[in-house]
Every structure is written in structure tokens, then in C-alpha cells.
């Protein structure tokens, strides 16, 4: 019957769409990006806060820093261990993580995240100067 042909076609198309990621990837290995630390970062051992926190929630602290600096004019951040940092993406964060492409971008691209940090901040302020 004619309508059965339509139905089966429709069903196959639907299932193909639903299962798109399975056949599109064809079982190829997609390893997660390996984040590269610069020598300086390696030497530091720990970032502003713990590694786990920084992995999942670094955007929160960057947000907080921005607020504190821009609105309150306060530039010094003291972490729970009592260590002080100058709150600056360009001068503090990118000081260790100077390799934006190998560090920030790798994960962001992988997770399809497009932070607007770089709308204002340029990648490597020291070189540009």
C-alpha cells in the first residue's frame, strides 16, 4: 500500500534524525582536549582556588573580580589560604596561562562556549605593549 511506504519512509527519516549523533560520529574516537599548562603555571601548582573549583566555576570568580574592580575599585583578592592576587584577567590569569589558544580556547571550543571576555580583553596584552 502506498501510505505504508510513506509511513516507513517517515519513520526511517525520523529515527535517522534522532540517532544522528550515533551515525554521524561513526564510532570514531573523540578524545577530550588536553589542556596545556605553561611552565610557569606548572610551577605554581595551584591556581587562585582549587583545581576542581576552577574547572567548573572559574567564570564565577572572574565575574566577581570584574564587579569588585569596576564597581568598587578594589584590586586585591585574598584567597581562603590568605594569598593575595591582583584581580586582573590580563595581568594575573594570563600571566600564568599565557597560552590562551592551548588553554582557554581548547575547552571552550570543545564545550561550545563563547565567553565574552575577549570582546574587550586582548589575548596577550604584554606582547601587544
Amino acid at each position: 500500500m502506498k501510505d505504508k511506504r510513506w509511513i516507513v519512509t517517515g519513520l526511517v527519516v525520523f529515527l535517522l534524525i534522532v540517532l544522528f549523533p550515533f551515525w554521524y560520529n561513526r564510532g570514531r574516537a573523540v578524545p577530550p582536549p588536553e589542556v596545556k599548562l605553561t611552565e610557569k603555571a606548572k610551577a605554581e601548582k595551584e591556581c587562585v582556588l582549587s583545581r576542581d573549583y576552577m574547572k567548573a566555576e572559574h567564570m564565577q570568580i572572574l565575574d566577581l573580580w570584574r564587579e569588585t574592580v569596576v564597581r568598587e575599585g578594589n584590586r586585591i583578592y585574598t584567597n581562603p589560604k590568605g594569598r593575595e592576587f591582583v584581580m586582573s584577567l590580563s595581568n594575573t590569569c594570563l600571566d600564568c596561562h599565557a597560552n590562551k589558544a592551548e588553554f582557554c580556547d581548547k575547552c571552550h571550543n570543545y564545550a561550545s562556549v563563547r565567553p565574552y571576555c575577549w570582546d574587550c580583553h586582548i589575548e596577550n596584552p604584554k606582547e601587544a605593549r
Partner: protein
Amino acid sequence: MNKRYLFAFLVVFVLFLAAGLGSAVGLQWLFGVVIPYAAVIVFVAGFARKVLNWAASPVPFAIPTTGGQGRSFDWIPQAKIDNPSGGWGVLLRLLFEVLTFRSLFRNTRMRLKEEKIAYQLEIFLWVGALAFHYAFLTVLLRHTRFFLEPTPGCIQLLETLDSFFRVEILYPGIQFGLPAVYLSGFVLLLAVVYLTLRRILIPAVRYVSLVSDYFPLLLIFGIALSGILMRYVTKVDIRAVKELTLGLVTFRPTVPEGIGAVFYIHLFLVSVLIAYFPYSKLMHLGGIFLSPTRNLRGDTRAYRHVNPWNYPVPVHTYEEYEEEFREKMIEAGLPVEKELAEAAQEKE
């Protein structure tokens, strides 16, 4: 009656707890890999089975609901969508039905006041349903970023559009809005809340609602809520999550360290929804395309619809009729096939 939504709520709550506890006691493989795979298999098999089961029954008669002027003379304009006369017309009607919920848009509310019946426009169900379905679709499409590497440009574009409205809140103790707020998630949550409340608060709708009406709503509420929590509140290592989800679709399952319980709850509720789908009313997704009142052309006198099981039936023939009434017919001057004498002769 409250039994029904309480029961549904209880089930969703138990599922919620099960995944939370399960991932806490080290059942990550079960909730992160085994159950999602099983759910997809159940979905695909169940969906195909249901649709093929529908297809196995024929459509013996063309019974479209004609929602407008049918095809007539050249000088009478036809309602080409609501009463289509060809394949393209039917396709258009179905598309409008599926993409814009055209029938639901007609909805009115009847009011009996001062001995007069009034029919008011009732648009909220249509708006709520539309918001719910489109938000859900957007959320689904957005989630393909977890299953494709690299994330396709069109999905990135969708993400950008979905997050065009920046909401960032930062007070001591409250920090919200990073990563960027996706409107679709919140629209979905609100729409689900509306549809659920509507079901509970409108007496007539509550009267007809079953557990299987509340359950998917509450389940989707749980899914939306856990997703929103994960993104904006508890946070999750997104790189590890994508490693897990990509592992699933590339058939290299892996359970990376350090993914929080909320993720497993989210994934488990989604798995339950997927597996439940083919065995529930959610199959209206497929059913709408097979609804004979919507997918057939309306000019049924112009073409012949064939019934595959059309069988001969006993009919009272004209001959039998004349046999019974011949005398009276002749007396009344009605023409007959056989005159009395002829009929009598044959009988002998």
C-alpha cells in the same frame, strides 16, 4: 483525585532520589552508561513498533474533518488548507497542524451567563503548548553540542540566539547568569509549570486527567529543573560531561571522574522520559501524522479512496423488492421490470 498527581509526583521524586543516591554510591556506570543505552534502544524499538503497528491497520475510509469550504465551482473560493484537495494541500494542512497547532488555535471557551452562551477566544492553551514544544525543541537541539565534536555552526548560532538576552545578577550570596542564560530552558520550565497547574486547577481538565498525564509533565519539570540547576547553580565540569556523552554516541563509553550527582539525576530522568515515550500519549508526536481526519484530502467525491478489506454485503435487491410489491406497483402505475403474468410464468 489528588491521588493521581500525587502518585505521579511520588514516582518522579523516587526517580530523582534513585539517581542521586545511585551516583553517590558509585553506580555511575549504571546511570551514566547502561541506562541511557537501554533507554535509547527501548525508544527506537518501541517507537518503530508503535508506528508500524498503526501502519498495519488500513485506512478504510477517507474521513477528513473538513474545516472550511470544500473544492467547488471556480467562483467559490476554496479553503485550501482546512479543506485540501490535493497532496500539496494535505501536506500544507499537516505542516500547519504540526508547526503552528492550527486546530488548537481555534480554541474557545464557552460561558453561560444571563441565559446567553458566549464563546470567547481562549488562547492560553495554544500559547502554552506552543511555548512548551518550541522551547523543548530548542533545548534538544542545543544539547547536540554534547554529542557532536566539533559543535556545528548552526547549533552555535542557535545558542547565540537563545542567549541573546543577558541576565546577570551579582549580589553577596547571589550570583547568577554565567554561563549565559538560555531563555529556552526557562520558557520550558515556565510552560511546564503552566500546563501542570492548568491540569490541576481547571476542574474539568483535572476531572479527565490521569497519572499518565501528570507523570510526563512532572518528569519534564524535573529534567528542566535539574538542567537549570546544573548550569546556573551547582555547576558541573562541562568537559567531563561531554567526554561522557561523546563516549556514549561514539560507542566508547567512559565515566570520567568528578561529575556531580545533579548530572546523573538529569541524565536518568531524560532516560526515563525517552524509554517511557513510545508507550505513552507522548506518541502524539507520530500519531498526528497518521490521523485520518487531518492527513487526507477533502475532495472525496472527486477521487476514489480504496478500502482494502471492502467485502460484499447482503443487499435487498430491486428484484426482491419488485417481487414483494409488484402488484401494488402496477396498480399505482409505477413501472415494473416484469409484468404480473411474466412473473407468474417464471415462478412455474
